[in-house]
């Protein structure tokens, strides 16, 4: 059997090790996306709607974070979580929790920037109307996020995709421990270097499928959302 055939066999037979790795990947990345989004979506919207102190600084910081290489984010989190680091006493280095933290940090600026970009033009459209009704700040935030939901979810999916595809940060803070912190990308890196191409390729196929799926959903959301866009 060819390597590709064996890889396909692993996927189709739902190999236990494979399922474990895919499951952990999804759990870590979904949790990270959720945590990052809960903070980044309201903050991104607030940055689009209001002028407030430190606003420019926040935007600059988050843009720089976006340009930061994942390994550097991984390194910083490693230093914070390592036994001598300020958060060392929690003992979460080399656990899935550490990986979730690292991925949240990586996703946060992406979701923040995409949310802000989605809400800026919408707020320009809506501002006068919402002012005329004296809409409260919380209501305003909810209204704009809801009406930009297609673009916001797209940002969220982009963040999820990045988290899932990322290697550098999770390998540093997770340690790539078999059966515990080994996710799809780190396994691919390790198994390829060991010459165990079947498992690596099987995971590659799954990662690719997820990426295609995410982009298909983004595309579908885009075409659906445009129905509600004012074109006049």
């Amino acid at each position, binding site marked *: 059997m060819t390597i590709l055939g064996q890889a396909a066999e692993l996927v189709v037979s739902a190999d236990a090790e494979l399922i474990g790795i895919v499951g952990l990947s999804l759990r870590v990345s979904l949790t990270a996306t959720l945590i990052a989004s809960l903070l980044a979506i309201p903050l991104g919207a607030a940055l689009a709607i209001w002028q407030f102190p430190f606003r420019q600084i926040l935007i600059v910081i988050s843009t720089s974070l976006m340009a930061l290489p994942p390994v550097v984010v991984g390194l910083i989190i490693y230093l914070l979580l390592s036994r001598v680091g300020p958060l060392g006493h929690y003992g979460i280095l080399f656990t899935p929790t550490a990986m979730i933290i690292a991925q949240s940090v990586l996703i946060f600026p992406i979701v923040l920037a995409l949310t802000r970009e989605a809400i800026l033009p919408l707020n320009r459209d809506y501002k006068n109307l919402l*002012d005329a*009704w004296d*809409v409260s700040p919380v209501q305003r935030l909810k*209204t704009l996020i809801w*009406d930009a939901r297609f673009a916001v979810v797209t940002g969220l999916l982009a963040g999820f995709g990045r988290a899932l595809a990322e290697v550098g940060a999770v390998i540093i803070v997770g340690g790539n421990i078999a059966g515990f912190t080994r996710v799809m990308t780190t396994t691919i890196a390790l198994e390829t270097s060991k010459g165990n191409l079947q498992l690596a390729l099987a995971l590659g196929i799954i990662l690719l499928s997820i990426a295609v799926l995410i982009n298909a959903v983004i595309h579908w959301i885009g075409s659906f959302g445009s129905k*509600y*866009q004012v074109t*006049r």
Partner: protein
Amino acid sequence: MSGLKLTNLSYSVDGTELLHDISFTQASVGISAILGPNGAGKSLLLSLIHGVIKPNMGRVTWDGILADKTKLSRGFVFQTPIVLRRSVRANLAYPLKINGQHSETAIKAMLELSHLTPLAKQPAASLSGGEAQRMAIARALITKPEVLLLDEPCSNLDPASTKLIEAMIGQFVAKGGSVFISTHDLAQAKRLADTVLFINAGQLLEHTAARDFFDGPETPQAQAYLNGDL
């Protein structure tokens, strides 16, 4: 003092005075038409009257209370209708929702009144100009305001849509509401208005009964405007 009162109101942007020392009182009854050439300051005046923008000098009160404190008792319709990226029905439901007073009956009645029932489920973005304008008025009326402020609600509309909107306005006034409407349609102003406010270059030049205004305005500017020379 019942009704609207403007006291020495001025509004400027970057040192340019766009509205100059405007004072008048207007009881909350009937329809007041705000007339004046393009750029006279009609839209600005309406925004100041509603309290969405603040004057640099002077003040606006409704029944003695500052305008920006009583916005919820008025409906405001902008010159270009602002459409929420939702269905037509959700657009109408929105002002009720933010005030925590959802009412299916009110939504249904407003859809009927604005002749939008068949389009209720459509994205509001797909409405034509006239339909969007009707929706905007229905959305302003749904919270049962005492006063309706309309900024050129019938510009770009065909006669049938104009008639429909005038019917909506008429019904609102018949129930005791009062209306401020800016318009360039002099025939419409004649049909609807009880009172006319004529402004030119940021100054209120006339505030008189509509009949007197159209019979013979006092200022040469208003005369020129009516003749189509301003």
